[in-house]
């Protein structure tokens, strides 16, 4: 029905008098890496929470993976993956137990769970003994990659990553973006929020949110040209602090 992986129309959310998200509209194409940028409190997380069904919009509508987030939440849930800001695996379960648990929750068949477990371990380079360790005991870089792969376990059409690279070292961040590209190349759309503007350059398209509204949107090069800026940093500063000359 819809050719877009995500299609938001005039999506808004108010908390009392405060408007966290103010009538945002955007589309994400299949296989696209879409960067969601903005200062803390700009409304990124609120927007994502509406798209994944954790929060009801005050007005507006959206379709995710072809289904309406309000009326077809169940279908949406089956077709999206989500990795939250906070670490989302169970620390007191082993790597394998985490994968099996989430596989079971998403209704992945036993054979597929076994096969995909080996795939994931190979993909992030985790050894057999390490896979039987508690998640608590493996390094953070691996945990984040693992959380990402677990979010993709049921082969969702869209995956939402909320600041996935917070607190990891540059090498792991690079490795993480390789994983994102692989995923997008396989046809899954990726919506990623980030604080790192160099990472924004890796996205196919970006949107910059200011005070709940989308202030700029387009391919990174396009956005830079439109603002006559050399880097996204300058664009970002000009948008978020209009008074300062960048």
């Amino acid at each position, binding site marked *: 029905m819809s050719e877009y992986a995500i299609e938001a129309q005039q999506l808004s959310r108010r908390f009392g008098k405060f408007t966290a998200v103010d009538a945002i509209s955007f589309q994400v194409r299949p296989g696209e890496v879409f960067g969601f940028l903005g200062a803390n409190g700009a409304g990124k997380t609120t927007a994502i929470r509406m798209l*994944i*069904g*954790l929060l*009801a919009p005050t007005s507006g509508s959206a379709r995710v993976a072809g289904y309406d987030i309000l009326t077809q939440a*169940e279908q949406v*849930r*089956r077709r*999206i993956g*989500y990795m*939250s*800001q*906070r*670490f*989302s*695996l*169970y*620390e*007191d*379960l082993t790597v394998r*137990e985490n994968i*099996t*648990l*989430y596989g*079971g*929750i*998403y*209704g992945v068949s036993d054979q597929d769970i076994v096969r995909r477990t080996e795939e994931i371990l190979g993909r992030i380079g985790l050894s057999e003994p390490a896979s039987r360790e*508690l998640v608590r005991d493996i390094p953070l870089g691996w945990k984040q990659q693992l959380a990402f792969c677990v979010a993709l376990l049921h082969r969702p059409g869209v995956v939402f990553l909320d600041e996935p690279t917070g607190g990891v070292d540059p090498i792991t961040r690079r490795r993480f973006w390789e994983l994102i590209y692989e995923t997008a190349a396989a046809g899954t759309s990726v919506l990623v929020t980030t604080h790192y503007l160099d990472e924004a350059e890796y996205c196919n398209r970006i949107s910059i949110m200011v005070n709940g509204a989308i202030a700029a949107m387009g391919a990174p090069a396009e956005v830079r040209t439109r603002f006559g800026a050399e880097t996204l940093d300058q664009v970002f500063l000009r948008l978020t602090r209009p008074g300062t000359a960048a």
Partner: protein
Amino acid sequence: MKSFLGFVRKEALHLLRDRQTLAILLLLPVIQVLIFGFAVRTDVREIAIVIVDPTPDLATLELRDRVAASDRFRVVRVAPSTSQLDAQFRASMVRQALVLPRDVARRIGRGDSLPVQLLTDGSDPNTGGIMQGYATAIVQRWYADLAPSRASLQIQALSRMRYNPTLESSHLFVPGLIAFVLTIVSAMMTAISITREKETGTMEMLLVSPIRPAAIVAGKVTPYVALGFLSVLLVLIVARVVFEVPLRGSLALLLAESGLYIVTALALGILISTQAPTQRTAMIFALAGLMMPTLLLSGFIFPLDSLPVWLRTISYVVPARWFLIVVRGIMIKGAGLATLWQETLVLVGMTTFLLLAGSRKLAIRLG
């Protein structure tokens, strides 16, 4: 169903890997029974008593023998006068004093009145009352034996405590302990384990997934239901082996009623978890909101009859109050469902209400 079983497995693993908590949860029932059984008892033994006997004769010797023979009393000394009693009471050397008049045997022979004074340390009113009862019983019996003709003219009430003739307090506290332990295991642990997932962020992952909130909650509480049953059995076994507390009614009925109460407690735990943002708050809610009423307003520690009316009114909404009547009925009186159906029905009603309220709150929170 498969995702539900996976979920139960996960929850069981959490529980089994948290060795410290598990050890506490399993030891708790055992230790509680031992503490309550040995230390906290309302039946009194070895009461230090002074007998003031100014003119010893055959009659008073007989009374002294009877007091000394009872294992309720330990005769500290026999004094000729009351002069040192005050100091002895203050120093807690004695807790009771039996003061006899002069010339006891002669008075009985003549048929005169016999004023006997019984002084009891009333600083703990409950035990004080019990001590007084014991001493009065001995004196009355002794008098009736010595002066049968006079006693026969009086109305005599022969009292006998049914179901618990020796007034063993352990028979009374074990049912209360079952309610207490189940409140901790079921309500508090459920509340903590659900809020823990809220705190770590894993709850968000689950809510984004297709698994239904009801299945999440059901999966989370299942291991605690099992743990609850295990605790009940532990309490029963320790109480039976160490304190010979009887189980006069049906074990199956007792376990079924315990199962009902476990669900009540779980529902309370779920309700708490929907309100509490963190594990710490959940714990405080559970301690103040559940544990205190379970201890104090259920008839476990203080008899409900001795509560003021307004507190007694509050006690009607404490589930443990009803569960306690049921458990005491089954264990001590050997009662069956025929007599306990009303209390059972109250519990069923409360549980249904709590489950509905809990799931409603859960739904609102997700919206």
